[in-house]
């Protein structure tokens, strides 16, 4: 445990944080542009620095600056400490959940073996589940500490929604664990580099999506519900709850909920890309045979390409589907996703057994 | 390596804090949380012994312990809610109707 390996870890952590935050910030811009496209508008295009508009990208900086310059306001009767703590807790999981996700192939440099993954834990996927299950407290505290009826109602709805969709989420991931027989993320990505073969010819990469099409749909739905965005934005429901659990938040604290939400979109995409779309693997290209530099560049670019596509998919979902009613939301979670997620387990077992991957 | 005795001492302290909470506090929910604290102290002891015996059985037992805790909390809180609905209190000193 020398200084250099610590520095390498710090660099990796910084890289992941910077990527999550920048992707999150870019998502605010992408979301508005995508919405404008769908609604036949132009979207942000006015803000400029010395005439440079950069497609409206400067808007992100303006938004950030605006949030910092706003009054940090705590309503009367609110619990001051918890009011401040809530956005911090809500944002925390999105910032650390990617620590176990590998974002590129490993390489050797100067006699060191470097894995492009912050922490390779034995319990990999369970770490993501454990950390994200703590995010509920941020939402719960936000509503409870605000001393506002709408906040509390939004909080109760949000908490019930998050915990309801955590079960189908956990069950859907079990399909992936059954398929690859490990919880370690880097092994899962490694195994997705192999192929289904027909007469020795590689036909399809062994990606999770080909083993688990149903599981993918379930997990993606459950994860979108966990991020609390339309069509699952009941907790915020502008038209009924004015803004739900974050009514009484302003300035950067509100911005933290907001940024946390966009960062968790990135986390969701990274998780789905890793579990179902081969992570940094490129189909039919053996990255590990390439020299270190092109291998890393190609691998990292592939991974983030997949993440961007999945983020964009979530934007499309958000601007295409209308909001559910609360009873429909609970109905979908407990009466549709849950039985399907349980049914997915015997289906997976049968499928793997048919492919001959099992000891009898 | 930290000696096993340290873990056992810590476990005893956590257990004592939990036990004191059960005996002193009157809010049924906090009493319940103190029980969880005691349970957790015993889990810590089990895991520590499991590590020093170099056998994983203790960890499996802790897993079962958590299952029992979950079942107990679900039913226990349902009881507390039912009591609160009929008596409008969770103060255990006011719930004496079983005393006869």
């Amino acid at each position, binding site marked *: 445990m020398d200084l250099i390996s610590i520095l390498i870890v710090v660099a990796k952590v910084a890289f992941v944080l910077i990527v999550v935050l920048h992707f999150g910030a870019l998502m605010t811009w992408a979301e508005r542009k995508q919405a404008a496209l769908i609604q036949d508008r132009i979207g942000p295009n006015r803000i400029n620095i010395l005439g440079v508009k950069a497609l409206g990208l400067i808007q992100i900086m303006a938004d950030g600056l605006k949030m910092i310059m*706003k009054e940090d306001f705590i309503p009367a009767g609110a619990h001051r400490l918890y009011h401040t703590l809530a956005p911090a807790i809500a944002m925390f999981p999105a910032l650390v959940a990617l620590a176990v996700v590998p974002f590129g192939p490993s390489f050797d440099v100067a006699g060191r073996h470097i894995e492009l993954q912050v922490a390779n834990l034995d319990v990999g996927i369970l770490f993501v589940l454990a950390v994200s299950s703590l995010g509920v407290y941020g939402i719960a505290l936000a509503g409870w500490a605000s001393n506002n009826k709408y906040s509390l109602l939004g909080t109760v709805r949000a908490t019930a929604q998050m915990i309801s969709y955590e079960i189908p989420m956990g069950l859907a991931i079990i399909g992936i664990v059954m398929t690859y027989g490990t919880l370690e993320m880097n092994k899962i990505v490694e195994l997705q580099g192999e192929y289904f073969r027909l007469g020795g010819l590689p036909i399809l990469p062994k990606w999770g999506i080909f083993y688990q099409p149903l599981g993918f749909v379930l997990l993606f739905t459950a994860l979108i519900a966990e991020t609390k965005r339309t069509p699952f934005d009941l907790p915020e429901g502008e038209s009924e709850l004015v803004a739900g659990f974050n009514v009484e938040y302003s300035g950067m604290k509100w911005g933290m909920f907001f940024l946390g939400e966009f960062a968790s979109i990135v986390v969701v995409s990274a998780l789905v890309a890793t579990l179902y779309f081969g992570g940094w693997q490129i189909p039919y290209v053996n990255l590990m045979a390439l020299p270190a530099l092109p291998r890393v560049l190609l691998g990292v670019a592939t991974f983030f390409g997949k993440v961007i596509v999945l983020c964009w998919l979530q934007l499309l979902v958000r601007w295409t589907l209308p909001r559910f009613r609360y009873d429909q939301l609970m*109905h979908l979670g407990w009466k549709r996703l849950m039985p399907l997620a349980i049914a997915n387990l015997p289906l997976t077992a049968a499928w793997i057994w048919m492919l001959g991957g099992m000891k009898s | 390596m930290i000696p096993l005795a340290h873990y056992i001492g810590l476990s005893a302290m956590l257990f004592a804090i939990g036990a004191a909470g059960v005996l002193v506090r009157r809010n049924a929910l906090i009493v319940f949380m103190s029980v969880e604290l005691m349970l957790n102290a015993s889990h810590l002891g089990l895991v520590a012994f499991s590590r020093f015996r170099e056998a994983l059985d203790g960890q499996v037992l802790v897993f079962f312990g958590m299952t029992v805790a979950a079942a107990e909390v679900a039913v226990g809180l349902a009881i507390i809610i039912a009591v609160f609905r009929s008596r409008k209190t969770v103060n255990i000193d006011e719930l004496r109707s079983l005393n006869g």
Partner: protein
Amino acid sequence: MNPYVPVLISFAAAVLLIGVFLFFCHAFGPKAPSPIKSDPFECGNPPSGPAHDRFAVRFYIVAMLFLLFDIEVVFLYPWAILFRELGGLGIMEMGFFLTLLVGGLAYVWWRGALEWE
């Protein structure tokens, strides 16, 4: 290196970042409190009654069901890791457990605990 060292560094970095954000929102920006502003927001009306109120029993039921099913899901993880090695016997073992899980869900459904009218 112990795999938890990077996790710790990651946690520390996240806490640091959040601290910077909180400092930003504390340090810049005006401070102009007023009694009207600090009223709880109720769409412009004067606030009526206390903000905290008791909620429907359905919400407790959802939370309790979540807890029990969460445990069952966690039990499935070690099985899923060993699934290929355990073979037919493992499927039978888990089949029994899953039957209980499905039975529980069916019971809850039948009792109408999942209804939100």
